[in-house]
């Protein structure tokens, strides 16, 4: 990947934050580590297009300070297993082969053995990380039908490469995650997503997929203006309403339909999969999955149970 302008910066204040979540919707209680700000992949729907003002990429160079901050947080919060990720303000892996920012952090999680680091990406490149990987690092990929990738994620790795990379991570002993996010409703999306799930099931060992998130396309009003100006017929194909968090999202009936379809198909492939909805309402959770998830704490507890299934008592 050709590199955009990269600025190396020192951390000013905290770089570890709670995932901003979204008002009146249930969040998974994830912690974000802002090692990199800005993303070279330029997906058309990316929320970063409306968030970050500085063009180019900013990289924290002082990984030691960042690790200390993570360590303090792990020591302070003993009520549940913390999950951290570096993919909130950037793609975790897109530039990592060049910048090498994740390695030391991944190594720390392997040594600390008290929390998980999730590297979330659409860029199929993990070979450089092999020396640092350990069971406490979850390699995750956003997954989407290739047709969607061709239209809206043009600079990212093809789905087949992403799945092969996940398989490789599994072969190296890592647990992996899948993120169907954003799910986009377009002409023929049902079949494309069904085929995608078949491809995933044919490639990965689903018993070693630690979590699967599903989240329908949602975006801020400035992005709506951008989609209109750019005539993104694909993204605007279905019907949007303004959610209680001030973001556009598909009308509830459509979201429930999509979630049910994906949830049921995924569980058909592996009944033990842990599938969660990203930034959804309690009633949507209930209608789509039949599960009573009312609060962020409810969902966090589900994660703790899941992690317990995978790691046994090692987090005690």
């Amino acid at each position: 990947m050709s590199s955009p302008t990269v600025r190396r910066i020192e951390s000013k204040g905290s770089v570890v934050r709670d995932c901003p979540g979204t008002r009146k919707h249930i969040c998974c209680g994830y912690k974000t580590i802002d090692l990199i700000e800005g993303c070279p992949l330029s997906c058309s729907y990316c929320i970063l297009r409306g968030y970050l003002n500085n063009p180019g990429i900013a990289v924290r160079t002082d990984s030691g300070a960042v690790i200390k901050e993570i360590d303090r947080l792990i020591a302070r919060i003993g009520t549940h297993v913390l999950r951290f990720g570096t993919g909130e303000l950037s793609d975790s892996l897109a530039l990592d082969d060049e910048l090498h920012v994740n390695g030391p952090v991944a190594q720390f999680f392997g040594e600390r053995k008290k929390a998980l680091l999730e590297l979330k990406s659409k860029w199929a490149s993990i070979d450089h990380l092999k020396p640092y990987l350990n069971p406490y690092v979850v390699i995750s990929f956003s997954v989407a039908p290739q047709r969607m990738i061709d239209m809206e994620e043009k600079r990212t790795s093809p789905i087949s490469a992403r799945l092969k990379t996940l398989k490789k991570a599994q072969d190296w002993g890592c647990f992996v995650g899948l993120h169907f996010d954003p799910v986009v409703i377009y002409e023929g999306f049902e079949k494309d997503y069904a085929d995608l799930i078949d491809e995933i099931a044919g490639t990965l060992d689903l018993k070693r997929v630690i979590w699967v998130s599903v989240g329908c396309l949602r975006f801020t009003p400035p992005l709506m203006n951008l989609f209109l100006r750019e005539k993104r017929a694909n993204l605007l194909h279905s019907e949007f309403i303004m959610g209680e968090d001030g973001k556009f999202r598909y009308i509830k009936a459509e979201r429930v339909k999509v979630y049910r379809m994906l949830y049921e198909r995924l569980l058909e492939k592996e009944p033990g999969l842990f599938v969660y909805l990203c930034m959804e309402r309690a009633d949507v959770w209930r209608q789509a999955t039949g599960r009573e998830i009312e609060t962020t704490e409810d969902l966090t507890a589900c994660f703790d149970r899941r992690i317990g299934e995978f790691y046994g008592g090692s987090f005690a």
Partner: protein
Amino acid sequence: METVEIDKIHVNDRSFCVSYPLEDALLLASVAKLGVLVPLSLLRKGHPIIVTGFKRLDAARRLGIRELPYVFLDISERQALLTAIHDNMTRPLNTVEKALCIDKMLTAGFKVEEVYEVMTMLGLPPRESILRTVISTAWAEEQAKSFIVRHQLPLTLVERLFWFEPEERYGIIRLADSVHGTVSSYREMLRLMMLLKVKRGAIDFQQLDGAKDADAIRQRLKRQTHPLLSDLEEKLKVLLSSCALPPHIKVRVDPAFEKESIDISLRAGSSQEIEEALKKLECLTGQGLFRSIFELTHGTPHRV
């Protein structure tokens, strides 16, 4: 003060004209009563051409005045353009006039930084996207310019208007002029039309013809862009009108049908009114009104 015959001025040279429209009823009345008091500024270029005073000239011509006071400016053409712009800045400029100022600077070869400086003075954000809209406005067909000025459209709406093809723009202007809406109603109309164009590739103006007001146009557009939401709204309307709620009992549903819960409020001036309202609500509950409303707010049948 020296005067010049209008015939001796190159009146069709509008290189420095940043006024739009030239017709000005107040100025016309003033000139009719007192004549042209402030001299035109002219630049020698073969025949003299006007730097400032286009509106005065227009008023004078309408009134049949043949001679006007003038002063010659001994400045370059670039300075003349800046003089015209700054002279007009002493009054509030409309969106088209601002666009003309900027477009003429670009045509005259001013540097982008100089153009941005004037944009800032005119209250226009100095950005490339704004510059594009400004240029489109300056070069727009007369009908669009006139529409923008008549309805005092802000630049954000002008940008949306120019997003459409000229034929579509014509249809939009015709439609908007037929209902006399407000800026906010035009904003919503344009947003829905953009959405419709993106989703379907075209706007069927025939479906919108005959709407009695801006809200009716918005509803017709929304039925096309948001069929599911429109259907829910329609069903809710039917349910609420069928149960004949007394005016002191209000049932409110989230307009996006996101929230499952509904708000019921009642206004009462006595215990008896409260009792009556509660009886009415009990009766409506028995008739299944609220169950039907909750089916709408749930969005889909529950999982079994």
